[in-house]
């Protein structure tokens, strides 16, 4: 494995004579009503023949605009105002519309983030593939239709002969992204630009797509530009990486070096803000974060753009630094590292062996009855009938789930989309009513209660939502949003007292009380999430369900929110049911973790135990699929590949729901659903062959 990669890197290095793509001093500006925004501000980089280059950055860093500029896909009010984009020696910016069309989709292809909207919904897959191939004159209609089937097969689409005759809506997100890749690869392009190709996908599907991109790069010599906010994704695919901040490249180097030893404080901050899945939970769970927000693009600082947030700031940072060599083959835009200073290393708490060394957190409530107890909870959502005499079909969202949450602990709920984790959150909060089963909150069975009966309990259980944009009423000020439950439950009386409590709450979540008069659209995602937390805290709950509270945020903001939630837990003795799909985050903040698959519990275990010694095959695959932001580890790690897609939750498989994708599956798995058995104290798994996967 290592050998081939070394050889590959060697090949890439020798291919330096003719770069596939050369970008020099690219400037892309948006002429908005408020002024000129320089989204891409003097970006230069080269992609060698056969190389995979990663572009990393937070939202607003200009990485997507860079990608669009490469193909000149931007519309007014955006304009490329300066610079050069040379693709195979030709200047893309000087091309006539005809030339540009002949290059796009032929020599240079692009895969976008959202697979759900980037295919034409009214054309069959075959038609879209054939059209792309025929229009560039490479293939005749007959050749193209044969090739379309080949391509889909190569991209891992099952039954490609049938798939070409389907429409996009008949495919899942992962399948559509495969079709997008097939489209991109249909004319054997020299360069594939992939803009966050896996962000909308589940982790096991992400692993499959990343494998595919890596194969295209390795076996067909296609150069790749991969844009992502996820360092793990970059580590898995890219040879070289550039980091963007505020429209500029701030660091460039081999991925391995850059991730192991960042030379720009921003890269350093990105790496340190994310917990790692292969790292045992430290005693102090707070993550390293940096203050503040990226600068306002209309009002950029004169000096280093990162300086206002930089923990290593020196006086010289008032002058804007250039991107200069800091070590052989490495460049950084930073006065501090250019002067030879090294940034502090992240101390890795190694796994397995030393995991036992970190004592598990003491949960006071573990000896009492659980604060929340779910027994045999079932929720099926009916689908509209397809015909009057057809039987009504249902989505099996949650099936016979048992779950305990003890006072003071954090229980992590993980699983891929459609596993029922959000439904469980909404059942617990009684936004939905379960079809059957018991939901016992502190002795009260709320499964069948009316909203009116639950109302007093609403003061004790609250929820933080996923979407920071959708979870705050846009027509209310932030202060009113927080004050509403206070007044409604009669917790505070009168204007002054309410105002005082609102200010206090804003303070608690780290916001200036003055912002209470503003509307939510004036805030960033992270600030909105703080408001959402303040609203949840307003009624002084002791139990909070957090449904993917950080998945829509940039990594540094994620770290800030995690730290805030940890602080609040300590300060108010909160109990959390924490739902996430990011396994590293779940490992970091949970005491116990519950793994779900298609509405069923697969495994329950203390966090470190589950991540170090998973018993259920599905958990093994899930952990293995998650990319680690460390190129060296990624390279050495032979990970398990989970084939196929999750089956439909309308007609889930009989017996064990995972059996259709499980390599251990035997006839018994189809006939008998495996019970959730305690294999070791506190470690439960629902598998007939638990722990037997090599």
């Amino acid at each position, binding site marked *: 494995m290592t050998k081939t990669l070394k050889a590959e890197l060697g090949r890439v290095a020798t291919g330096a004579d003719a770069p596939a793509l050369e970008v020099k001093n690219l400037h892309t500006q948006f002429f908005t009503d408020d002024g000129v925004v320089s989204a891409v501000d003097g970006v230069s980089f080269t992609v060698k023949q056969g190389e995979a280059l990663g572009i990393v950055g937070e939202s607003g860093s200009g990485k997507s605009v860079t990608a669009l500029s490469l193909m000149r896909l931007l519309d007014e009010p955006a304009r490329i105002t300066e610079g050069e984009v040379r693709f195979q020696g030709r200047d893309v910016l000087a091309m006539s519309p005809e030339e540009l069309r002949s290059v796009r989709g032929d020599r240079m292809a692009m895969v976008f983030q959202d697979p759900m909207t980037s295919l034409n919904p009214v054309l069959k897959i075959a038609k879209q593939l054939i059209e792309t191939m025929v229009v560039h004159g490479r293939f005749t209609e007959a050749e193209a239709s044969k090739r379309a089937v080949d391509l889909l097969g190569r991209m891992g689409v099952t039954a490609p002969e049938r798939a070409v005759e389907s429409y996009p809506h008949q495919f899942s997100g992962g399948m559509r992204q495969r079709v997008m890749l097939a489209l991109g690869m249909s004319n054997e392009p020299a360069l594939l630009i992939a803009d966050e190709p896996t962000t909308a996908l589940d982790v096991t599907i992400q692993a499959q797509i990343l494998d595919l991109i890596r194969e295209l790069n390795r076996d067909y010599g296609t150069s790749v530009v991969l844009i992502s906010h996820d360092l793990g994704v970059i580590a898995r695919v890219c040879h070289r990486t550039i980091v963007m901040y505020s429209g500029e490249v701030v660091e460039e180097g081999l991925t391995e070096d850059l991730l192991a030893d960042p030379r720009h404080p921003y890269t350093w901050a990105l790496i340190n803000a994310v917990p790692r899945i292969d790292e045992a939970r430290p005693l102090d769970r707070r993550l390293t974060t940096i203050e503040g927000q990226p600068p306002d693009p209309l009002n950029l600082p004169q000096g280093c753009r990162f300086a206002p947030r930089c923990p290593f700031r020196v006086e010289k940072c008032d002058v804007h630094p250039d991107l200069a060599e800091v070590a052989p083959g490495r460049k950084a835009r930073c006065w501090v590292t250019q002067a030879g200073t090294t940034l502090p290393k992240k101390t890795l708490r190694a796994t397995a062996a030393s995991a036992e060394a970190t004592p598990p957190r003491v949960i006071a409530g573990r000896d009492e009855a659980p604060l929340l107890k779910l027994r045999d909870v079932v929720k099926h959502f009916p689908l509209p009938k397809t015909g009057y005499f057809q039987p009504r079909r249902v989505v099996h969202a949650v099936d016979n789930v048992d779950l305990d949450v003890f006072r003071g602990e954090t229980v992590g709920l993980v699983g891929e989309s459609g596993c029922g984790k959000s439904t469980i959150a909404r059942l617990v909060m009684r936004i939905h009513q379960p079809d059957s089963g018991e939901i016992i909150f502190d002795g009260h069975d709320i499964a069948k209660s009316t909203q009116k009966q639950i109302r007093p309990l609403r003061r004790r259980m609250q929820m933080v939502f996923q979407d920071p944009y959708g979870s705050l009423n846009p027509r209310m000020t932030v202060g009113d949003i927080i004050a509403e*439950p206070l007044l*409604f439950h009669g917790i505070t009386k009168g204007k002054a007292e309410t105002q005082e409590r609102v200010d206090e709450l804003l303070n608690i979540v780290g916001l200036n009380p003055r912002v209470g008069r503003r509307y939510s659209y004036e805030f960033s995602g992270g600030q909105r999430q703080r408001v959402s937390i303040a609203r949840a805290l307003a009624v002084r709950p002791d139990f909070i369900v957090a449904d993917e509270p950080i998945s829509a945020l940039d990594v540094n903001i994620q770290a800030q929110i995690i730290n805030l939630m940890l602080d609040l837990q300590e300060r108010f003795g909160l109990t959390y049911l924490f739902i996430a799909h990011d396994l590293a985050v779940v490992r970091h903040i949970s005491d116990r973790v519950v793994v779900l698959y298609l509405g069923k519990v697969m495994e329950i275990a203390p966090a470190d135990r589950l991540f170090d010694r998973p018993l259920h095959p599905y958990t093994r695959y899930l952990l293995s699929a998650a990319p680690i932001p460390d190129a060296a580890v990624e390279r050495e790690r032979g990970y398990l590949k989970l084939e196929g897609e999750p089956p439909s939750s309308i007609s889930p498989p009989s017996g064990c729901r995972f059996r259709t994708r499980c390599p251990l599956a035997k006839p018994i798995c189809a006939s008998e659903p495996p019970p959730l058995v305690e294999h070791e104290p506190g470690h439960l798994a629902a598998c007939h062959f638990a722990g037997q996967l090599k």
Partner: protein
Amino acid sequence: MSVAGEAAAARRIAPVPTKAQRWRRRYGLPAVGMFIILVWIVVAITAPLLSPYDPNLVDVSNRLKPPSGEHWLGTDALGRDVFTRLLYGSRISLTTGFVVVLVGAFFGTLLGGIAAFARGKVEEIIMRLTDLVLCFPPIILALAIAAALGIGTVNTIIAMLAVWWPKFARLAHSMVLTQRSQEYVEAAVVAGFGPGRILFRHIIPNSIGPLIVLVTLDIGNAVITFAGLSFLGLGVVPPTAEWGSMVAEGRELVAQWWVATFPGFCILSIVLGFNFLGDGVRDWLDPKARKR
């Protein structure tokens, strides 16, 4: 300069529009629409000050006079000053337009909102009733109802209202349906709020944008429908000055073109005004369009 450089320069030739140009491109027509409507509102209020004549004074000796210095837009078959009658006619048109649309929008939104929020049987009943009303061509149905109620401004307004609310109910229904699945609504449920509070304090304020657009675009529509009904002999009781009935009075007077033409232009201008304004309101309320 290199070839590429020249090409790059050529690419940049189109000048970047200035702020004023962008504003004009986006809000130019809406501003015109707003201006037209404001002018008509001022005219409606100050009509008696703008003309020395009585709109209903019959002067047969002066009948069918062409436009002149004395009678700017001529006189009609009964010798009434057309210009004066147009000024007074704006009162009826504006009032009926606003009343029909606002009242219709109020009831339509209420019914549609309740339907979408309550779901189940209530939704079925309200929405099927909406469908039922929408089945009939609105102007024919309004004509039938107005004919049954008898001629008169109020009766015609009632007839129009009977056919006007369903489109608002439809729109409000779909708006509330989209809003109720938003997380802030779930947050309100989690806070323990009751259904009334959630509907009226949270969902409806967030559904109001497209409704406002429809209201603005629809006033022109209501004006033209009312004028149409008046043209057909319903609507106002003669001799009240109203544009639709004025067109009707002039439709056989081919040689005396001014009698029918000018009220026609008035209807055109006010409808155009509301349409321009409505387009602008839509752009302005759409955050995506506004950001650009």
